């Protein structure tokens, strides 16, 4: 039920929730949101509801202390800092503990979405300390913010101040939370677009990556290895972008503002820019709560390198505990340091270098991200770069065979990389030329939604 692109969520939980939500008077909608979120979480992770509730309570109490001391003025600043440090330490400790248990004992020890809600809890404490949250947050608003189901499983990592809790308004005085037909419709559009990306592109492309694993990396041809690297890159992109659009869409249908998580990363001119446009809320979180506190780029070169590498190694660890994620984060850190400190002026003169970084290096880093076993990764790279010859049982025609069935997915993926395409669709979203094809695509996506999950006996076909 916790998968937005599943029929149980899209056609059972969410419609019922929406009806109840909108039948409830505005003042009590956060109550419904909180209860619905706990129900949602319990459906996906019944064992760890208590952990979530405990963390919510702890962080609310800690937040009250930070708020009281930070608001009282400078004399208490130190005590506020102590409260902040203790709150953050507890959160970090819980996250590391669960991740370590998941890695060493069983993956069942990492509660659903914990990486995301703990990060939200840390940002909450830090924002209170920095005075970025106007007014003392109430328990219900806080609990809603931590647990809200549109964001609990995979983000985006919204800030408390962005959620319009307690009637908060934006800088121009308009309330952030709006219940209007226009916003609701935008939510539906965002959800439909996201569902299409996830079900029609990402999940279909995922078949290719599975096929490659099935064959075994030692027996794929070099063209197929490259096809796999790009196929996996597209799969990851449309999976996560689609998911983020669905999450944002669900939020908008509930009155929340749109939270942007992707902004055409593959159109970027460098790897550092790429990661300002990819999973933006995570990047911004690391920037605001790790990179800047460490000194950012204001210090000496060595300090900047240290901050960047820390951020990127932590980013790697956050994605997973195995060595390949550390390697992934480390390599990205090195590329970004290299771009920032060495190539900087050259890249300004020759933009092509940055483009090549994004379009060539990024897919290769995704291979490191995808293949958890280091030896298997080595084999895969030997296939990508067959300088040492090719052993194994390779079918030289494999790439052609798969291209024959996957080319439409690759073509659609490439077309959607151009920012103009999706931006045009968003700009003209009220026009029948957009919403009617979108509705048709959505039903096509529903076809896969239904047939890939509802009937366990028909799901696998070998």
């Amino acid at each position: 039920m916790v998968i937005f692109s599943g029929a149980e969520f899209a056609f059972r939980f969410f419609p019922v929730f929406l009806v109840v939500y909108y039948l409830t008077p505005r003042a009590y909608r956060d109550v419904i949101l909180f209860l619905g979120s706990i129900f949602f979480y319990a459906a996906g992770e019944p064992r760890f509801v208590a952990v979530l509730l405990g963390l919510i309570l702890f962080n609310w109490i800690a937040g009250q202390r930070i708020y009281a001391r930070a608001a009282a003025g400078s004399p208490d600043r130190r005590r506020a800092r102590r409260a902040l440090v203790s709150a953050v330490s507890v959160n970090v400790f819980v996250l590391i503990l669960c991740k370590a248990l998941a890695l060493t004992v069983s993956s069942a020890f990492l509660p659903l979405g914990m990486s995301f809600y703990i990060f939200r809890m840390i940002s909450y404490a830090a924002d209170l300390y920095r005075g970025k949250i106007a007014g003392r947050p109430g328990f219900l608003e806080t609990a809603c913010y931590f647990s809200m189901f549109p964001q609990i499983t995979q983000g985006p990592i919204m800030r408390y101040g962005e959620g319009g809790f307690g009637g908060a308004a934006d800088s121009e005085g308009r309330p952030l939370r709006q219940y209007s037909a226009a916003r609701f419709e935008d939510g539906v559009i965002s959800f439909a677009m996201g569902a299409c990306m996830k079900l029609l592109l990402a999940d279909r492309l995922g078949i290719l990556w599975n096929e490659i694993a099935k064959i075994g990396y030692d027996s794929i041809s070099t063209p197929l290895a490259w096809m796999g690297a790009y196929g996996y890159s597209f799969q990851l992109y449309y999976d996560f972008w689609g998911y983020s659009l669905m999450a944002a869409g669900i939020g908008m249908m509930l009155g929340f503002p749109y939270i942007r998580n992707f902004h055409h990363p593959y159109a970027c001119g460098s790897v550092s820019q790429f990661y300002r446009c990819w999973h933006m809320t995570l990047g911004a979180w690391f920037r605001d709560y790790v990179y800047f506190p460490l000194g950012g780029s204001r210090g000496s070169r060595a300090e900047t390198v240290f901050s960047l590498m820390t951020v990127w190694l932590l980013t790697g660890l956050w994605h997973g505990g195995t060595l390949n994620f550390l390697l992934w984060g480390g390599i990205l850190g090195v590329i970004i340091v290299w771009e920032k400190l060495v190539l900087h002026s050259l890249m300004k003169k020759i933009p092509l270098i940055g483009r090549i970084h994004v379009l060539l290096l990024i897919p290769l880093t995704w291979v490191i991200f995808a293949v958890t076993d280091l030896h298997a990764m080595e084999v895969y790279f030997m296939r990508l770069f067959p300088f040492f010859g090719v052993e194994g049982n390779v079918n030289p025609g494999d790439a052609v065979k798969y291209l024959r069935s996957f080319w439409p997915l690759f073509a659609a993926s490439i077309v959607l990389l151009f920012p103009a395409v999706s931006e045009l669709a968003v700009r003209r979203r009220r026009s029948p030329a957009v919403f009617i094809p979108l509705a048709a695509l959505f039903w096509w996506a529903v076809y896969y939604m239904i047939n890939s999950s509802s009937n366990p006996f028909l799901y696998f076909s070998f």
Partner: protein
Amino acid sequence: MRRISDVFRGLRAMPLFTTLMITTLSASALGAAGRGRLYDDSMFDPLRQPYLSLVFQGLREGVFPWELAERRGEAAKAGGEDAQASASEAAGKGAEETAVESPAGNAGEAASPADGAWDNSSSDGSGPESGASSEEAAGASEAEADNMNADSPEGEGTAQAEEPQAVTAKIGGISVVITPAMQRAEEEAGTMIAAARTENASYVSAAAEPEGVNSAVMDAADYGAASARYLDPPGTEYPGETEGIFAPDGNYYRLQSVPESYFSDALFIGDSRTDGLAEYGDMEKLTTFFAKDALSVYRLWSQRAAVRSADGTRSEETLLELLTARHFHKIYLSVGINELGVPATAGFYQKYREALELIRALQPDAILYIQGIMHVTRARSASDPVYNNTAITERNAAIASLANGRDIFYIDMNSVFCDENGDLPAEYSADGVHLKASRYLLWRQFLMDNAVIRAEELDDTGEAPGLWEEAPAACEPAGWKQSDARDGI
């Protein structure tokens, strides 16, 4: 009135939402209307699934919503279908009762293969049974399977006893399209099949499960075309290390190594695993493949699949077209993993048996190899309630009993592939089900090491000289010309 117009104004401001609402409601209405009538709803749970999911599942099965209107129009057709379903159900029930009444000795019989639970006797006439409809036969075999389950020490008899009807319904739901041409051919073959069908169909229970290839001592069954041509000559003595199969009649069949050319007049029928063998088994220039993802005994005759021939030609055909048009001397059948998704071994067994009978009818002088279903890895087996090795072992025991050790042989690569627990080693497979490309060569080697050579091709020394020579042409190796070797023997 103002409120209503407000609602309309609101809906006009939300064009996508309105479109989706209207289509959702229509699809749900279609699903609800077709539930139980057009769509198989045996696994439908309205609490977890929307009604419209029935429509989409139907689309996948090739059932379109507008057929509902057609069915309503043609009441007779719909009625006929219902009647058919209930008839087969009734047949199943009836057979179950009779089977229960009969002395429950099947399990005992099956345990002692020499007695031949089925059948040995068909050569002396199977006339009386020729009128039996396939439904009746299906019911009978399911009922007997039940009977055996009830007798088995493991128990679970009550749970299993419910299944036959559900199975019939489910199989009916899955085997969708049978073309008229297909039906005609089946009718034509029907006479031969009926002649071959034995009276007390049953399969050997798990207790008598064969261990690997060489202990597969099977009851002989006669599919109407069994001949003594694959026998080694009487009085032949074999060195101790030679391995083979003893048929119930005391004859000894050698499983031996053969060269690649052995496969030149063979056909491999199978699912995605056989597809992998075609792709990575280094056999594409040796033999012919009829393989398709998800091929199962339920759809064996209705699905078109890629036919890859040794000479490089490719075509899309049904199995019936292929077996009618071309002549093969060996047919390897390797299906069964997908079928695990459909409950109950009895129904699977029956379908498998029907498939063998039809293949035999179409290719009277081919050696049929029933390939045991390859096991899955330990991780897969432990985590998967459906595709696990317990289920595969049970199914393999069932299909192994279809071999007759005369012209139908059961070969099982699991004895070579699997570890001491019967699990496919983890390094053999990435997804737990399919071999990695590099391991398909092992399967090929297994096939080359476990083949049966016809007596007519053996010379005095027990070798088949022609087979080991370079084959002059891919399709017509010297080994398969009608030689005089037989006279020499």
